[in-house]
């Protein structure tokens, strides 16, 4: 399965699937696992410098419809960047362009470039499948593979490696990933049980473990806590605070207070009016956006003066 193009795997041109389907596609098409020696060995790995994701003149379309215009922004390494803005402002569309998921929608196109440490993920000859492994995504609705065991869920990406991995190496990666996702202690005695038997918060952490098992550089999260109760939400926020020590993270959230609590930088997207393209209004350190934003539009939005 190494290096196979996404189109081949899916057969006919893909339609926008359910979140679960897209999640499965992301992981089942995972390319070769980079050797783990690039990461510190063992459990509780210390911080590693992650990569920068840079958007340059990004314009996104659904057919003729110009959905997002002229985004220029840097998603800083080892930091959490929150993307906020009202419904339909393009933040999720933009997020999905970062790991080439936008193009999975029929007719969806991209102009501009998205660079991971200087390498354009839309460059000629780049395998989008490899991109989606390096830039992983976690969705709003937790989507563990329901019939697979917890162990197999985490190892799902690894299982598509061209060369066989030794069981012991796989065990180590599964444990590291589950520990990294703050889930190991809760599931270590039932790794063989199905992933669907877990609570919402646990399922989401399982999805995070699955995403990190394949050693990504970046984690994208699309409203990862919207389907979770407040305690599970705070647990995921704590986890995100830990994960940024190893990864670059971007998170779309509808919850202002979550953006304020959990992110280092905040990017505010908005639409001038329905039908117009969404655009980036302002991006800056989260404490500044929430204490003295530069633009009145930003101030009005974070203060809840418009929805």
């Amino acid at each position: 399965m190494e290096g196979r193009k996404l189109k081949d795997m899916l057969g006919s041109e893909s339609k926008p699937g359910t979140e679960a389907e897209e999640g499965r596609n992301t992981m089942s098409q995972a390319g070769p696992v980079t050797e783990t020696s690039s990461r510190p060995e063992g459990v509780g790995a210390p911080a590693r410098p992650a990569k920068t994701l840079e958007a340059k003149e990004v314009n996104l379309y659904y057919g003729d419809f110009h959905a997002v215009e002229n985004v220029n922004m840097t998603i800083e390494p080892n930091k959490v960047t929150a993307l906020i803005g009202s419904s339909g402002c393009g933040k999720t569309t933009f997020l999905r362009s970062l790991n080439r998921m936008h193009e999975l929608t029929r007719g969806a196109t991209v102009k501009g470039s998205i660079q991971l440490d200087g390498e354009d993920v839309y460059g000629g000859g780049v395998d989008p499948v490899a991109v989606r492994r390096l830039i992983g995504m976690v969705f709003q609705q937790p989507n563990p593979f329901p019939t697979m065991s917890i162990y197999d869920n985490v190892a799902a990406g690894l299982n598509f490696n061209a060369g066989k991995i030794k069981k012991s190496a796989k065990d180590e990666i599964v444990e590291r990933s589950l520990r990294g996702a703050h889930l190991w202690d809760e599931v270590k005695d039932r790794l063989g049980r199905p992933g669907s038997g877990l609570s919402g918060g646990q399922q989401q952490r399982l999805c995070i473990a699955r995403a990190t098992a394949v050693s990504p550089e970046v984690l994208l999260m699309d409203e990862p806590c919207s389907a979770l109760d407040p305690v599970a939400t705070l647990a995921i926020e704590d986890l995100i605070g830990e994960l940024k020590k190893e990864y670059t993270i971007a998170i779309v959230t509808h919850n202002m207070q979550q953006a304020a609590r959990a992110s280092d930088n905040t990017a505010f997207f908005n639409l001038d009016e329905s039908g117009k393209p969404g655009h980036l209004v302002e991006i800056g350190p989260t404490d500044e956006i929430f204490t003295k934003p530069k633009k009145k539009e930003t101030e009005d939005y974070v203060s809840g003066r418009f929805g």
Partner: protein
Amino acid sequence: MPEIRVEYQEELQALEASALGGLDLVTSALTRTLEAVEHQDIELAQIVVADDDRIDGRYLEVHQALITLLATQSPVATDLRLISALLHVLKNIERMGDQCVNICKVIPMSGHEPPADAEMVKLILAMGAHTKSLISQAKHAFEERNVEMARDLVARDDVVDELNRDCFRLALAIGDDADKREWAMTMLLTARAIERIGDNAVDIGEQVAFVVTGLFREFEDASHPDPHA
């Protein structure tokens, strides 16, 4: 776009009005205090002392409501800066009220027939009048979010400081009469208290700048005197 969070906005506006209304209470306390000083009116002084409870009450009530807003409404940006500024301003108001009480408390010390020095009394009353207009300017600067008006408080307060120094010089030269010297001491305490009220008005000006600019800066710091003064 329909307006949202209207109740919260209205409550915040009402709390601002209530906090700044405390400055009106201070002005009226100061007016009566100056009258009590001028006429050595002990009864009036006692009324000012008792009425300080109203200023304290205003402080506690608005303070509590602001804390509740912080807990329940997650204010950010300008709203948050405004709430922080109002908490500071309330403290300034409470201190200004206390300074009036301090002045009123020293009036009985000088007895019913004090050997008043007319020049000294004139200075005190001038300080008081000037400080009242400082309070008014601070209040307007806050209401209007006018940073220039707020900064101007520094220069106006310098006048009060100068008058305070004049009181001091006058006291030094008051002579050998024991009663007169004692009276002059109480006048210095009075002058000092008025000078502190003026400083509190300048502090309110600094809060205006904070609300508007998001930067907290002392306009003028006693430990770093203006080299151009």
